[in-house]
């Protein structure tokens, strides 16, 4: 029997997920699940879905995908702001400024690199500075999804594709290309940086907690039509002493405006759930403070034309990817929220990050100007079974 184009794509996606899982924990993907890497999805023994076809999950990990190692960044990771400033100077200046007697000049110099006229700084207003681009990923391999395979003509901008580590072509992940050599993404030893650890913390603390509610699931192996509610909850997850999410916890989808609740549709093929492209908007709270405080700042987490690709695991969990196009600012908004402190304390050159992302933007194309303001992205997702209440007062909507 001939397979349709859609089925072929799904089969490739399944293979990609399987490959991704087979590689074991990606950077940031070493979730709490501890489930063994799996091979072909069709070989796995999956549990039967509940009789009512509803299954709830809480997202236990959502982290940037990084192919581990240092090979992707042959020139090293992106320098800190102080060194980035030095690189803008003639080589003979480097030695002079590093002399002890010139230390104050050196400090003043690189710190002034973070500021502009009228109190502006490179993290609060990165788009008004003209800093050189940062080092980008040189490897042809990345985790991710083929986002533009079915894209409408002229809806994306020119870009290079990656291949997955197992050889699948057409992987779109310009966020990884742009940011994959920063210390925040890759870490000192290539095993992952603060961005992944921070993400895990934000999810487990309840600041970003996301839930999935699957409806109409007849089989975890193959099902042509599944509804997926992907939403935020203000309920905190329960975690063990290692920060791993516990299963069987009840959550209620936020019911206060603005309500971040995305209803997606998808299907299950060979144990892999894939949703159709659709804009996904969720919220993130940065810190536990009030909304007017940076420690309680609310922001959006957007995935334009986003899609989920999640494999059901024998232990009842989900593992896979969420991909889509992210507005450029969203990628570095955590750094922007820190303002000048991000530049001076963490040494991050937000202006350079911004410029690099802008150059590599491949999605959210303005039909009038032809400019793209979004970057393709893929994040690793893990989710554990939970009871998800879609309507707070409902009696029949909790599902695990």
């Amino acid at each position, binding site marked *: 029997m001939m397979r349709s184009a859609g089925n072929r794509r799904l089969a490739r996606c399944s293979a990609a997920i399987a490959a991704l899982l087979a590689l074991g924990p990606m950077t940031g993907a070493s979730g709490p699940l501890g489930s063994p890497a799996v091979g072909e999805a069709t070989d796995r023994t999956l549990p039967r879905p509940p009789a009512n076809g509803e299954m709830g999950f809480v997202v236990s990990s959502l982290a940037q995908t990084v192919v581990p190692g240092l090979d992707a960044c042959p020139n090293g990771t992106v320098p800190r702001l102080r060194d980035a400033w030095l690189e803008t100077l003639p080589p003979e200046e480097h030695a002079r400024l590093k002399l002890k007697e010139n230390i104050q000049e050196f400090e003043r110099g690189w710190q002034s690199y973070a500021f502009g006229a009228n109190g502006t700084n490179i993290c609060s207003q990165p788009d008004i500075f003209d800093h050189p681009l940062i080092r980008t990923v040189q490897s042809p391999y990345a985790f991710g999804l083929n986002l533009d395979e079915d894209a409408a003509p002229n809806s994306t901008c020119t870009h290079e594709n990656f291949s997955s580590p197992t050889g699948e072509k057409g992987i779109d992940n310009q966020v990884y290309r742009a940011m994959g050599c920063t210390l925040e993404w890759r870490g000192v030893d290539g095993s992952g940086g603060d961005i992944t650890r921070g993400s895990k913390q934000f999810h487990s603390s309840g600041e970003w907690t996301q839930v999935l509610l699957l409806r109409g699931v007849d089989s975890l192996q193959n099902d042509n039509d599944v509804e997926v509610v992907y939403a935020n909850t203000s*309920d905190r997850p*329960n975690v*063990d*002493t290692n920060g791993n999410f*516990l*299963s*069987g916890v*009840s959550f209620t989808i936020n019911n206060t405006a603005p309500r971040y609740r995305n209803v997606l549709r998808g299907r299950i093929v060979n144990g892999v759930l894939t949703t159709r492209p659709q804009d996904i908007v969720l919220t993130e709270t940065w810190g536990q403070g009030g909304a007017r405080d940076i420690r309680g700042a609310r922001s959006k987490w957007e995935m334009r034309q986003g899609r989920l690709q999640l494999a059901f695991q024998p232990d009842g969990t989900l593992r896979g990817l969420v991909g889509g196009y992210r507005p450029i600012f969203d990628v570095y908004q955590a750094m922007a929220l820190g303002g000048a402190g991000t530049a001076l304390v963490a040494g991050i050159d937000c202006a350079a990050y911004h410029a690099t992302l802008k150059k590599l933007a491949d999605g959210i194309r303005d039909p009038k100007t032809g400019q793209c303001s979004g970057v393709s992205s893929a994040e690793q997702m893990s989710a554990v079974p939970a009871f998800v209440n879609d309507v707070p007062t409902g009696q029949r909507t909790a599902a695990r």
Partner: protein
Amino acid sequence: MKRVKLLKLATLGFAAASALAAGVGAVDTPPSIASPAPSAQAALAPQFQIVAMRRITEAQYRNTIADIFGPDVRVAGRFEPVVRPAHELIASGAREASISPAGLEQFDAMARGVAAQVFDESRRSQFAECQPADATKADADCAGKVLAPLGRLLFRRPLSAGERDFYVKLAGDSAGQTGSFYKGLELSLSAMLDSPNFLYVVETAEPDPANPGALRLDNYTRATRLGFMLWNSTPNEALLQAAQQGKLTDDAALAVIAGRMVNSPRFEQGLRAFFSDMLLFEKFDELAKDPVIYPYFNQDVAKALPEQTLRTITAHLLGKGGDYRALFTTPNTFMTRSLGPLYQVPVHKSAGWEPYQFAAGDDRAGLLGQAGFLSIYSHSGRSSPTLRGRAIRELLMCQPVPNPPGNVNFTAVQDVHNKATPTARSRLTAHSTDEVCAGCHKITDPVGLSLERFDGIGAFRAAENDTPIDSSGILDGMHFEGADGLGKTLASSPDTTQCVSSRALQYATGLGSEDVSPWVEALDKQFAASGYGIRALFLKVATMPATWQVKAAPLDQGATKISYAGQRR
């Protein structure tokens, strides 16, 4: 300057209270730096005699303060616990409870705190109906009008003239030195709250006209017993009035009043206190589990567990008027968000409790399938069929099990990762080969092993160390399977209903199980006749003559003395 004076006066008041404490029931007159306070005996007519003293519990103290002064008056402090006698109720231990010097300090601190709140500017008008002529000076007339009604509520009987004069004088002396009428009232009230007439239920008896030469509890003692037994709080105005009118020694009137009390919503508070005592809920205060072994256990869970059990009990016995025996089989309970993960069930409400019904055939049915019982009768890192079996025998069937000898070798049962003994059943079998241990384990383990499909926090498990768990059990020759089977077996056992009947009578009287045993069988029959309804049981207890009979000799006719401040007087 005034603060110093107040402190001195406070000491004076405390000493006065101490003198009063020593005076109650004691023959000796204690030395005191202040004028000796009149004793309770002085309030009694010659024919009345003190026959027992029972210390009020923390819950009774708090409920009393809330009932008299309002729930917004905070009681801040640590209560010295009443020690539970082996295999008995705390209510029985209260008859023996003394107060240590440190404990009295705590009571004094709480008393001052309560008194300060009662007479602060925002509340004093609720309790002081009169106004002093000059708020900076003593006013004996007004002080008497304020303190006498409060003393009646706190001592659960009218103050004697001597007592009234004493507390008025104390308030006056204090007002004189502090320059504040209300500070005087405050100090006098705190002295009342320190008094043994408040901290203890002083039970008094009078000659029984129906039994010449015998004694019966008098009206005010009956009012107090009814209040604490059925509502776990001090007698309210209606009860005190009934006592004043002598209605509580009239059987017909007593039945009407007790009937009204067991049908009141406040009976739930009393029933909660009874079952908390019967099921040893003080164990929840020290409940601790290893968070590495049991990640689903946390402080929110620990706090919710006793409440879940109490809600189950009261909803079944009071809300539905259910059969006591069905407590061991009911599928109905309540859940919170914190408990949901432990039970692996959905909870819809983000905050608070909601009803939950386990599916038919679920092993969770009944109190014994609840995590509260299962977790307190487990160790911090493992379950314990022995503790569970013992608790079922002792608490629910009133069958005391001897303590293990001091030299027991627990190695076999503690070795939970030994592949040769992967389950508790196999470990206990190895342990019980010791003849010294086998005797008691035969009583407890066949019962407790049926609950092994619940781990040390009461979470479900099908296997231990990858070995399927055998949850078969035996109780008094009856074979059954799992918690569900155990519940059904207990529900059909006459020992469970006799046990709760005995406990109810002990709870009401403060007597031990041996003391009440002559009446238990008859009481259980009447319990059965009512369909094992808990209201009927407590109504019967409240109206049966045995509850009001006096068995013990009056305290002041023998060698019994009141232990106070660590000294035997």
